[in-house]
């Protein structure tokens, strides 16, 4: 119990947030690397395509030259049409490759391609066109120019090939670098995660240990203070408790049966705001304080009024309030005088039906309104059921509360024996609420076996 709940929750939240942040950064880094690598591979693929396109362009250029040679040798017009077709194909392919290189920002290769296309166009105008026009006049000068163009086009194509290959190599290198960087980064993050997980686990273990200690301590307090099965003459008594907060194991519900004298017993059930050790300690305070006040007062309303004053002075918590039912049972005549400070889950099961006992004043710790006592005579076979709001406020899957009516039906349908009745009610709440049970439930059942009057 070295850490308060706030520190525990804050520490856990901070560690979780840090872990999530680290995880987020790692995931983002992984996605960025993936995108980068994917982009690199896409660009490499584009370069390979450009290389293939370039070879196709070169083939078309050679087709043009071969068509010219074929024509010069044979004078067959077929070669002229072949030449035109190859020229058109060359121009179209060149435009397409040029556009692609520009789009892919391969400017170096694009510029060389422009030079290559210019050479080819110049070759057409200065070599091909004159030779097609005068095939019989083979001037050495024209042949030499043809050779010159051929050499320089070969040279330019080789330069384009080298530029593309260089770009491909650069990309491959950058991909490798990216992969290396990414691997190191991921390894670092895994290391950070591992260390954080170890720290987190150690911290969690410590918190769990502290929580278990607190829980154990709370259970001891609960057992010591919450209730005692004090037997009453001519009565069958049963009780049950359902904690909605299993990790805290205790809430602010308290009930008590205390024999004030030979023929007078105090019946108490209360629901105090708050949970955990503080609430458990407060239940002890409530139980013993009410016992003490009841020893000096014969009216439940007076007991509530005095306790209200004591509560507001003893506990300086403006947010603390409590609902409480106090009953004084004459175990001889079985007259029950009671007062209820905002506690509305009190029922009386009779052979002819179940009735709810009225609330006779406001909850404690809120205002100084007067309380009122009521009296009711119990008969043999009657069962007084004192419960907390965990019974009436339990919700089903649709969010509907059980309510007073549902509670009365449940009490009517429950077993006859007091303990069976209490257990049946807890079972009913579990069935209805399932994992949605949010309130603790305390049930105290007192079945009148026979009254003193009957005995007489």
């Amino acid at each position, binding site marked *: 119990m070295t850490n308060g709940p706030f520190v525990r929750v804050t520490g856990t939240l901070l560690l979780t947030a840090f872990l999530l942040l680290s995880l987020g950064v790692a995931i983002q880094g992984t996605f960025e690397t993936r995108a980068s690598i994917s982009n690199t591979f896409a660009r490499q693929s584009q370069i390979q395509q450009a290389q293939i396109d370039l070879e196709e362009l070169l083939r078309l250029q050679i087709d043009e030259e071969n068509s010219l040679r074929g024509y010069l040798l044979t004078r067959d017009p077929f070669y002229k049409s072949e030449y035109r077709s190859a020229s058109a194909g060359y121009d179209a392919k060149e435009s397409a490759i040029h556009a692609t290189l520009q789009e892919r920002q391969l400017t170096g290769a694009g510029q060389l391609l422009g030079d290559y296309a210019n*050479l080819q166009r110049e070759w057409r105008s200065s070599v091909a066109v004159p030779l097609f026009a005068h095939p019989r006049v083979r001037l*050495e000068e024209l042949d*030499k*120019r043809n*050779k*010159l163009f051929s*050499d320089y086009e*070969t040279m330019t194509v080789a330069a384009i090939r080298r530029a593309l290959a260089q770009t491909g190599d650069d990309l491959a290198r950058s991909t490798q670098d990216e992969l290396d960087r990414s691997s190191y980064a991921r390894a670092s993050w895994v290391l950070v995660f591992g260390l954080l997980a170890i720290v987190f686990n150690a911290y969690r273990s410590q918190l769990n240990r502290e929580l278990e200690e607190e829980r154990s301590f709370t259970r001891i307090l609960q057992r010591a203070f919450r209730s005692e099965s004090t037997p009453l003459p001519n009565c069958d008594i049963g009780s049950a408790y359902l904690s909605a907060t299993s990790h805290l194991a205790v809430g602010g519900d308290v009930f008590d049966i205390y024999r004030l004298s030979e023929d007078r017993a105090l019946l108490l059930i209360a629901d105090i705001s708050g949970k955990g050790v503080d609430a458990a300690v407060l239940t002890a305070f409530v139980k013993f304080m009410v016992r003490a006040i009841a020893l000096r007062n014969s009216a439940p309303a007076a007991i509530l009024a005095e306790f209200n004053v004591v509560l507001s002075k003893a506990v300086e918590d403006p947010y603390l309030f409590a609902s409480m039912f106090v009953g004084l049972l004459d175990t001889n005549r079985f007259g029950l005088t009671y007062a209820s400070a905002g506690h509305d889950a009190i029922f009386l099961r009779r052979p002819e039906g179940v009735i709810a006992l009225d609330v006779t004043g406001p909850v404690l710790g809120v205002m100084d309104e007067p309380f009122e006592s009521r009296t009711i005579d119990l008969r043999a076979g009657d069962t007084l059921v004192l419960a907390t709001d965990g019974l009436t406020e339990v919700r089903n899957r649709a969010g509907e509360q059980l309510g007073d009516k549902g509670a009365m039906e449940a009490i009517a349908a429950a077993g006859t024996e007091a303990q069976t009745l209490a257990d049946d009610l807890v079972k009913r709440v579990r069935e209805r609420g399932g994992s949605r049970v949010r309130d603790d439930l305390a049930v105290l059942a007192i079945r009148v076996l026979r009254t003193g009057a009957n005995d007489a």
Partner: protein
Amino acid sequence: MTRKALLILAGCMIALTARAVADCRAHKGEHVVLYSTTDDPSVLMWDSRARLRAYHAASFDVAQALLPHALLVGPGTHADVISCIPDYVTSPLFTGPESAVGVIVTSGPSRGAARWVLGSDVRMFKKR
């Protein structure tokens, strides 16, 4: 001592000569065939080795201006090697420097012409 120095000197000379021989594609007195490996297999023959070098290293326009100093022979023209200078020509097209080979044409319309050609345009002629 003198004998040892002579041996070392002879070794160096042999090594240098061997390198020069290894780098040249052809040697004086060899019969060769001219054939270009570019798209146009015709071979340009130059009236000076400096122009041969300039043609391959220069821009297109400069190369065009040099053309009057070149003789074009068809692929398969025979020639005899009269000299060879290793690693003389460099070009963006070549992976390494090329040799310049001096030849005398022995066939075709340009028979008797003495010119310089690129080492890679020279093929060894195998006599039957």
